[in-house]
């Protein structure tokens, strides 16, 4: 709380401006089908290099907030969700549009998004702060255990194939070993290339995997999207606002919970809250036919997730989603390492982030209205030009970091890797996790063994390490059990269908 008060006392105009610009950029990116929040953030990442750390982080985090709302614009207007999390808003949003209520549908989405952001921000402040107290007790074994806990998340991030998720994570871990060895200082896998001595910056891999590979994928895609009219955003009246309270509470609850769970993300939260809002609604029959509650619940949920998903990232340095992985990249390029020590060493930046996110939530309300014509203009532009500008932004942004042609080549190579990972259906996030956590795991594992005289018991004698390792084991067992139950359920369902002929 002190950090927030200090940040407010020294509030800078540029911090507020970063929140406003981030939200605007996020809405525009979210509104473009095929451009996810993580890509929108990845495009911005290189530009943040020249900015002050607080401003850079606020800019990126606000982009995430804006993109979650931006995704609902094409979802409501053309039945094409701009982001995965906005898919649930298509159901009733598009129906309202067909009934001539597109302005009201967008107003509900915006209003619920602001409420979701504010609820999520409160949870973020409430839960992240106490974790800061752990900071000073962290030792090398505890950091190693923290890295293992981070990697255990891969079990739930792997999608349909755990083996593929593990291979993707190993790829990230392998990339993290390129450069100078953390203990002996000897070079590894550099093949005489001096540019590789300091390792490969995660930002290059992230931009390549998320943004460049998407461009390569879209090289053969056809987009024929036209938005004919610019709807006038209409906010719900008091009677409707009262009706929306319950679905918004449901959305905030699921959003809050799912944000904390790595890998769950806004999409699951949106669909779960939609289902629950329908179950608890007095007007169940309206769902699927243009129910305002059917927009309020998922939109509150995905904006809550945009804030609460920062809790595991800030507290433990574990990104639970693609967007938080990019935000983590933003921290890393400014030499900030999210995790327990962030609160102790850079409390001012955390305070600025909270304050910036508050301004972003408020700005969402105004920017969401003001930017609508610009969004619709941009969505209507020919896709080849939009993609050409995205390519140019990537190439310019990456070059601007270190004026290095080598780094441009790394991004292209990462883009090719990402393209083939998409083709062979490997998830990206485990690779990013492996890359980000690899150095921390290896260096702290080896330092711990040096400290203990090669005794593995150091990891169990350290209380924090023991707790974190136990949580990691429980998390892996829980996720595996969930997978197994899901597998059994599908088997039984297909057997039942076979027997009954249905």
């Amino acid at each position, binding site marked *: 709380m002190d950090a927030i008060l200090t940040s407010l006392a020294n509030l800078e105009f540029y911090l507020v401006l970063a929140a406003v610009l981030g939200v605007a950029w996020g809405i525009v990116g979210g509104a473009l089908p095929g451009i996810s929040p993580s890509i929108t953030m990845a495009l911005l990442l290189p530009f943040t290099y020249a900015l002050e750390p607080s401003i850079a982080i606020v800019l990126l985090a606000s982009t995430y907030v804006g993109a979650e709302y931006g995704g609902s614009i094409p979802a409501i207007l053309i039945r094409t969700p701009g982001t995965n999390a906005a898919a649930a808003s298509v159901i009733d949003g598009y129906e309202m549009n067909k009934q001539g209520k597109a302005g009201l549908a967008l107003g509900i989405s915006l209003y619920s998004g602001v409420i979701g952001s504010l609820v999520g921000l409160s949870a973020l402040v409430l839960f992240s702060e106490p974790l800061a107290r752990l900071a000073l007790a962290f030792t090398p074994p505890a950091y190693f255990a923290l890295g293992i806990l981070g990697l255990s998340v891969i079990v739930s991030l792997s999608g349909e194939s755990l083996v593929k998720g593990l291979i993707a994570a190993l790829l990230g871990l392998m990339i993290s070993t390129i450069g100078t060895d953390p*203990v002996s200082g000897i070079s590894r896998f550099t093949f005489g290339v001096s540019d590789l001595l300091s390792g490969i910056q995660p930002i290059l891999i992230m931009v390549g995997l998320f943004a460049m590979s998407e461009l390569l994928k879209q090289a*053969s895609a056809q987009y024929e999207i036209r938005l004919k009219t610019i709807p006038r955003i209409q906010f719900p009246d008091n009677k409707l606002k009262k009706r929306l309270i319950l679905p918004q509470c449901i959305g905030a609850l699921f959003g809050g919970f799912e944000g904390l769970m790595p890998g769950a993300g806004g999409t699951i939260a949106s669909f779960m809250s939609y289902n629950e809002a329908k179950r608890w609604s007095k007007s169940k029959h309206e769902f699927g036919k243009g129910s305002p509650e059917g927009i309020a619940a998922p939109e509150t949920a995905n904006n809550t997730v945009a804030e609460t998903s920062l809790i595991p990232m800030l507290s433990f340095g574990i990104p639970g989603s693609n967007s938080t992985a990019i935000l983590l990249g933003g921290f890393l390029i400014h030499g900030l390492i999210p995790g327990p020590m962030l609160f102790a060493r850079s409390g001012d930046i955390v305070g600025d982030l909270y304050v910036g996110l508050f301004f972003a939530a408020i700005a969402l309300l105004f920017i969401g209205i003001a930017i609508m014509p610009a969004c619709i203009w941009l969505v209507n532009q020919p896709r*080849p030009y939009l*993609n*050409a500008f995205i390519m*140019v932004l990537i*190439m*310019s942004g990456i070059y601007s970091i270190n004026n290095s042609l080598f780094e441009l080549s790394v991004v292209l190579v990462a883009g090719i890797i990402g393209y083939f990972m998409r*083709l062979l259906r490997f998830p990206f996030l485990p690779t990013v996790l492996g890359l980000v956590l690899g150095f921390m795991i290896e260096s702290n594992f080896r330092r711990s063994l040096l400290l203990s005289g090669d005794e593995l018991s150091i990891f169990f004698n350290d209380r924090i390490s023991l707790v974190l390792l136990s949580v990691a084991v429980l998390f892996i067992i829980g996720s595996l059990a969930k997978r197994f139950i899901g597998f059994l359920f599908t088997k039984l369902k297909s057997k039942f269908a076979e027997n009954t002929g249905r």
Partner: protein
Amino acid sequence: MLSRDFVGGLVAIALGSLYLIFSFRQRVSALADTIGPAGIPKVLGILMLSLGIILCAQAIFQTRKSVVPAATEWDGEARKIFRAFGLVVIGVIYIFMLTFLGYVLSIALLLVAVAFYLGAAFNLRMILIAAAGAVLLWTIFVILLGVPMPAGIFSQG
């Protein structure tokens, strides 16, 4: 026909094997700890190799069970890969041009090349958009952010 999982497994095996070979060739310093600079990479290489084999085995098992031929999985993919490769080539040419032609001219040419390659018609509008885009980006990076972008053939002396 090979399924995506089988190809993925083969790639993992190849990657794991190569990585393992280089791990065994890793130079070890006299200052190294017990594990040494090659210790963790060796473990990672073995794991990658093993998981690649598991993925291949899974893919073979699934292909035998599946009633849908794997051949349909790859329909149209060769054309898509070829299109993506074209974009990579444009990116590589840009990297080679950048220091020689300078930022403004290279970025304008990149805009024209990518837009044209992705299907936009080559006309005066395209040239104007590329020129305006290049000037806008130069203003953002060089004037506003103070990034020293290469001047190339426009540099004095």
